[in-house]
């Protein structure tokens, strides 16, 4: 949030904060942050919470405080695994990963990230899905290691997996290529994941 070392630092003024982000999240993500009871169950179980700068509970708080800048620039945006433990266990049914997805998209469009390699991985993975409708694991790993300059990353593990037949050089694409094309062309906005 604000830097206390800044000589112009003033405490946050609640009455000057509007609820535009809160409304935006409600409209775009269907998530009502006012339902949060601030119990912290989301953050207690978060699989990466111990390394987050802002835990899921704080993410919800930040939305209430209209702190869009903080949300876009935070590290948690990129190291969240989207495992959905937080939303699965939330007693109020708040879909925190949906908020993070939405903010990640915003950060991506602005070109901001605390973890360029993770963003690169996202890009490569999605381009693989766009091409074949599947993730071709081995080509993805090679590409990622090459482009991020970590040539030998996970090489031994990868070799073991390969020998056990857990990784293959080629994965066949899906049949419904047209659906994939539509998904990436943006027309999928009419559909949401999980719905029939």
């Amino acid at each position: 949030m604000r830097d206390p070392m800044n000589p112009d630092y003033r405490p946050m003024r609640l009455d000057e904060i509007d609820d535009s982000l809160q409304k935006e999240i409600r409209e775009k993500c269907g998530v009502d942050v006012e339902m949060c009871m601030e119990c912290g169950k989301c953050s207690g179980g978060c699989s990466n919470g111990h390394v987050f700068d802002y835990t899921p509970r704080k993410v919800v708080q930040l939305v209430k405080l209209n702190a869009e800048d903080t949300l876009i620039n935070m590290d948690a945006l990129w190291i969240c695994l989207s495992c959905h433990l937080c939303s699965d266990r939330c007693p109020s049914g708040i879909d925190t990963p949906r908020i993070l997805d939405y903010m990640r998209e915003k950060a991506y469009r602005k070109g901001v990230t605390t973890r360029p390699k993770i963003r690169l991985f996202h890009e490569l993975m999605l381009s693989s899905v766009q091409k074949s409708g599947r993730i071709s694991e081995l080509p993805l790993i090679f590409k990622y290691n090459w482009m991020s300059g970590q040539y030998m990353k996970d090489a031994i593990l990868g070799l073991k997996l390969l020998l056990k037949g857990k990784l293959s050089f080629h994965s066949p694409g899906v049949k419904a290529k047209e659906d994939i094309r539509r998904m990436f062309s943006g027309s999928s906005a009419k559909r949401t994941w999980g719905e029939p």
Partner: protein
Amino acid sequence: MGNRTKTAVVIGAGPAGIEAALKIAQAGFRAILVEKEAELGGTLKQLCSSFPRWEDPQELLDSKILELQACPEVAIRKNTVVTAGTPNGNGYIVTLSDALNAQSDEVLADAIVLATGFELMDISIYGEYGYGVYPDVLNALEFEATLKEWKLGKGKPPKGVALFKCVGSRDRSKGNPYCSKICCMYTAKQAGMVKELFPEAKVYVFYMDYRAAGKEYEEFVREVIEKRHVRYVRGRPSKVLCEDGRLLVRAEDTLLGLPVEVLVDIVVLAPAVVPRPTTRRLAQMFGAKTDEYGFIEPDRFNPVQTAARTFFAGGCGFAVETPLAQQQGAAAAANVIALFRLK
């Protein structure tokens, strides 16, 4: 005492006292309902709305007063205080003083029901909140009056209101160590009322936690937060300052660990519920026990009895919400009736 109809003196005509007097009379005994004010109703009369159903307390009061009027066995004594109680055989001689006519008379009582209610702690000792200094810092009962005015379309609409809970409660330094129990709910109600009357107003409730233990209570508070959009900020405010004729509240948002400020027009403090000084005096008169604070202490095995012929109900025992005051009034009446029926 012969075949005279047995009589109970009920002191205090709030929801607890009214209920006790009604039930005693409806069971065929006499009740003298003593009220120091000019009107019946006690604290309930001052309230603007109720939780958890947003009902008008005046409707409840009006219906109870109608019931009282249909009950000739209840003698209502307004503007009257009990000035003396002398043990007399199996009862008391009670001196009633009429404040208006400066007269007093004596009545025979076979049982006493104390229903003197509670009052709010004097919170001017918290200099940091400026109660008694800034006219727009109100206590909760004063704010009920403001809400009544607003409801009638009078007064200036506020742009911002901040409500503080636990002022003098859960305070082992200057206040009381106990939780006053009703503040969480009435504060939610008051905050929700402001949003109902002025949806554009920004309303903040500063809290340590909200204790909504009761039927429909949790749902009520959630409605205030989620449907009426009252902002709950976790943290006990530390200072109220005057800034440009408005009030600046300083607190910490303890959920984020950040100091925060908010500029509002009105600050409402929810003071600790404390016993009235008269309760202690009356308790001594009628052999009742009081605890370290001055609330009536019950018998070990009877929660509405405190001495052989002395019962109590409502806020003089501890902070209660209206339905509980009524329940205790009815329970005290049941005890009085049982006592009167003893051969």
